[in-house]
């Protein structure tokens, strides 16, 4: 009897999972966001497109396109576009800086993937695990690290000074923003490309080589095509994230470089919801269009694969030094230097800031954390509950986001019309303005929904985990879906023909084949949960559910010391978590 019940559940597992996923999405994402978005359509209570018309025809937001849409003669607009005083508009500029940030992130991320995937050295696994570390850092920490590294009196200028170059003025420029965005997103690119590179079948390269292809040719014809989808996926995600960037832009660039998210924030703060929602919807449309374009590309370029036999990694220090080997190691060394400047120095500066005060070296900032833990009032944020909550939420998020991500991955790799649209919509949690999501959660969950004379409110731990899972599952989906898509359908079909349910086939046949993607997605889920701020702050009720980033934020003051000390705790706890997730993920590989 129970066995039959199990079989029944198993048969419908995927369907039930899909229903549960849909329910969570509606409750903590679509419905809350809709409560804010509707303001753009019903500014005065009546359906109207006037909000969009006024934004789309406003050259301040839309640049020359706005002029064109507002009915200026095309010839005149063309002349302006050709002239140096053409206007990009806030949306145009936002897209421009996002494009630059994407190029920089790819340029920094792909070489890292090459090194991590193709070379063997001590600590490679650990380094690989730590690549997503920048992902969880609060922007104020990154700003502190960047000022200390690239600022007027920063480390970079000190080093340049010793060799008689410089100083360079990097702060408050577009370059500073682009580098900081690369700091956040190059690791993401590196991560997905490394995974793809490791999955390249070495036998195919050998075949190509045995047929007379040069190593160069074999790379271009065999390896590269298998990397493009991963590179483009990293690029797409980077664009979407940097398109909605806000705090980094204003901390390192300044208001003359303001992005659309800056205006969304201000309008929301001043309770001007219609225009804010209008801008956020345009932001969403642009991001989702790009995502959709990528998904079409991904589907068209799916690499069919069975089991892969990964190639052997080269030793970082080869036994014999050929000219090629020398050149390669030279490139590795050059990249390592760059990586130290962009990733290591800012992190080290952050740690250094937590250990120094006006009078030099001090442990005062850590002492502050201990004191706050020991004597803080109930209404004050304390370090240990923050650490504990972050870990609990991360584990719970893992448990919710991975099944959600898998369900969506399965649902969007089946063949039906319009599935790429569904897939793109499933990515919406990445592409909606964080401020809008925060306000929506406040209205939709914290204040609750009135149903039949009852007001249902949701806040606290469950809501936080659900919100984190919603932010995290697209990462699981994107890490798993390309692999699933590339699997030979015959594998699943024969399992089904032998009587396995859809869920059984997924667990026993497909997942083991795409397991590295699942682990990568899981690591991202943990990273997203630990770093999440906007939803956590809205849904955290009382002193029982705030997290480490919230504590960092709370400890900001006139001196940055206490906040940077908490930031270092965040770094340490997160690093340990990533290493654990990936090591465990490796062990439980099917």
């Amino acid at each position, binding site marked *: 009897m129970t066995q039959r019940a199990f079989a029944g559940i198993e048969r419908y597992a995927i369907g039930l999972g899909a229903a549960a996923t849909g329910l969570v999405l509606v409750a903590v994402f679509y419905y809350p966001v809709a409560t804010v978005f509707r303001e753009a359509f019903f500014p005065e209570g009546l359906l109207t497109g006037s909000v969009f018309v006024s934004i789309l025809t406003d050259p301040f937001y839309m640049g020359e396109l706005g002029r064109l849409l507002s009915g200026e003669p095309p010839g005149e607009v063309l002349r302006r576009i050709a002239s140096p005083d053409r206007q990009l508009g806030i949306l145009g500029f936002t897209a421009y800086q996002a494009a630059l940030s994407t190029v920089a992130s790819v340029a920094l991320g792909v070489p890292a993937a090459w090194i991590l995937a193709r070379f063997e050295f001590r600590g490679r696994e650990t380094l690989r695990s730590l690549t997503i570390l920048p992902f969880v850092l609060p922007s104020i920490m990154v700003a502190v690290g960047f000022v200390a590294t690239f600022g007027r009196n920063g480390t970079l200028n000190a080093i340049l000074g010793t060799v008689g170059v410089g100083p360079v003025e990097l702060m408050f420029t577009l370059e500073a923003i682009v580098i900081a965005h690369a700091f*956040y997103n190059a690791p993401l690119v590196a991560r997905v490309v490394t995974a793809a590179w490791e999955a390249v079948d070495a036998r195919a390269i050998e075949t190509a080589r045995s047929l007379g292809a040069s190593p160069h040719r074999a790379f271009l014809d065999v390896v590269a095509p298998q990397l493009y989808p991963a590179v483009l996926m990293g690029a797409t995600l980077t664009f979407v994230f940097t398109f909605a960037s806000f705090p980094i832009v204003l901390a390192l660039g300044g*208001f003359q470089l303001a992005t659309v998210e800056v205006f969304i924030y201000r309008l929301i*703060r001043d309770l001007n919801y219609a225009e804010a929602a209008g801008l956020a919807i345009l932001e969403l449309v642009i991001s989702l269009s790009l995502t959709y374009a990528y998904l079409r590309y991904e589907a068209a370029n799916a690499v069919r694969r069975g089991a892969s036999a990964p190639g052997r990694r080269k030793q970082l220090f080869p036994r014999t030094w050929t000219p090629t080997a020398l050149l390669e190691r030279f490139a590795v060394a050059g990249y390592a230097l760059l990586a130290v400047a962009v990733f290591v120095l800012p992190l080290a500066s952050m740690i250094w800031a937590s250990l120094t005060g006006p009078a030099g070296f001090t442990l005062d900032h850590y002492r502050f954390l201990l004191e706050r833990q020991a004597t803080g009032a109930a209404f004050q944020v304390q370090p240990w509950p923050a650490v504990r909550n972050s870990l609990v939420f991360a584990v719970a998020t893992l448990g919710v986001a991975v099944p959600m991500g898998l369900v969506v991955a399965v649902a969007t790799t089946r063949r039906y019309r319009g599935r790429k649209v569904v897939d793109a919509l499933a990515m919406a949690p990445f592409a909606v303005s964080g401020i809008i999501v925060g306000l929506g959660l406040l209205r939709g969950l914290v204040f609750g929904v009135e149903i039949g004379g009852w007001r249902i409110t949701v806040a606290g731990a469950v809501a936080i985990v659900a919100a984190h899972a919603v932010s995290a599952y697209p990462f699981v989906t994107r890490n798993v879906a390309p692999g699933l898509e590339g699997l030979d359908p015959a594998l699943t079909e024969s399992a089904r023909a032998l009587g396995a349910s859809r869920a059984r086939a997924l667990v026993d046949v497909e997942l083991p084949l795409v397991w590295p993607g699942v682990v990568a997605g899981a690591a991202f889920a943990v990273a997203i949960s630990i770093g999440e*701020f906007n939803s956590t*702050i809205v849904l955290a*009720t009382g002193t029982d559910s*705030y997290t480490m980033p919230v504590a960092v*934020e709370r400890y900001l003051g006139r001196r940055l010391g*206490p906040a940077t000390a908490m930031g270092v705790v965040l770094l340490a706890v997160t690093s340990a978590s990533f290493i654990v997730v990936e090591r465990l993920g490796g062990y439980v590989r099917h």
Partner: protein
Amino acid sequence: MTRNGAGHITDPSTRRRFLATAGAAGASALLAGCSAEQTNGDETPTDPGDGTETEPGATAGSDGPDTLVVGTYDSFVDAPSTSPGAWIKETFESEFDATLVWQTPPNDVNYYIERAEAGVETDADVYVGLNADDLVRIDDAVSEPLFDDPGELTRRDRVRDGLEFDPEGRAVPYDTGYISLVYDSTETEAPETFEGLLEEDHRGELIAQNPGQSTTGRAFLLHTIHRYGDDYLDFWADLQENDVRVLGSWNDAYSAWMGGEAPMVVSYSTDQVFASQEGADLDEHQIRFLDGEGYANPEGMARFTDANAPDLAQEFLAFMLRADVQGEIAQRNVQFPATDDAELPEEYSQYAHEPPTAVTFGYDELAEGLEGWISGWERQFAGN
């Protein structure tokens, strides 16, 4: 971007931020925090998380007649340096036989506006931390009055001239800050006047903040409007020409200033109070009032119209105006008292500087101009 996202917008001294810590209802167990309550009928609604709270300080539930719920911005109760919250709670409770519950909602006073507009009962009795522009915004957006007139407060007449900012008397000032320049005199000598900021000597030397995000940034913009009237945009065009940096929050600006990116920053005239506590070199923390003026930013408190404990709320407002309490708030919040008879130690004025002339815009002027001023500035400064 849903990860680190836009929440990292803090102004510890201005405490304006969109999303801050909610100190509201407590929810301890993993399943806590979900609730259903009847919205019609006569029962007193309870708050989300009610019944699951673990600490009295963490919950807004069960407001009896002897519980006073006070909403405020988070650094008023939880700053890394000092904050008056704990002292006020302790003192008030010891004298009034009541429990004071601090509530620090995610988006400050906007949280209560949202609540009111969503038709959910406000769960606080008093809000501490209103600026004049908050009040304008609230009156503009909310259909039913959010705050009411607290009635006779015995000591209200002690509030100093020019600090009262609500023509309807709902908001009672409890302290004020003066926005000024803070500069490192080992690097530059700050100009005496606004015009001086345009000199070549001061090119790239000033860091200000985004007026749409930070109270200091907003105050500095308003100060230039007070000074130049409708020509303020011309002044800003020249200032931008002279390479002024407008960063995001007060924190962004102040940490860049501390990092030596520029020698002058828009901040508070109480800067030396902190600097001296930390044993910093005061030459690096000089105050400049441009044209001999500082922009006053009085902070007010008000009672919610649907307060559960209106009488206790009124007692609390009066308590906050008492001479001894005024002195403590000023010192612990590192601002100036609102009343003229606050008990402050002699040495406080040594480091906390008051401008020769305080300027500020009143409610009516802000109601008339604020929105246009800010968006006009944004459109000029960020146009690209």
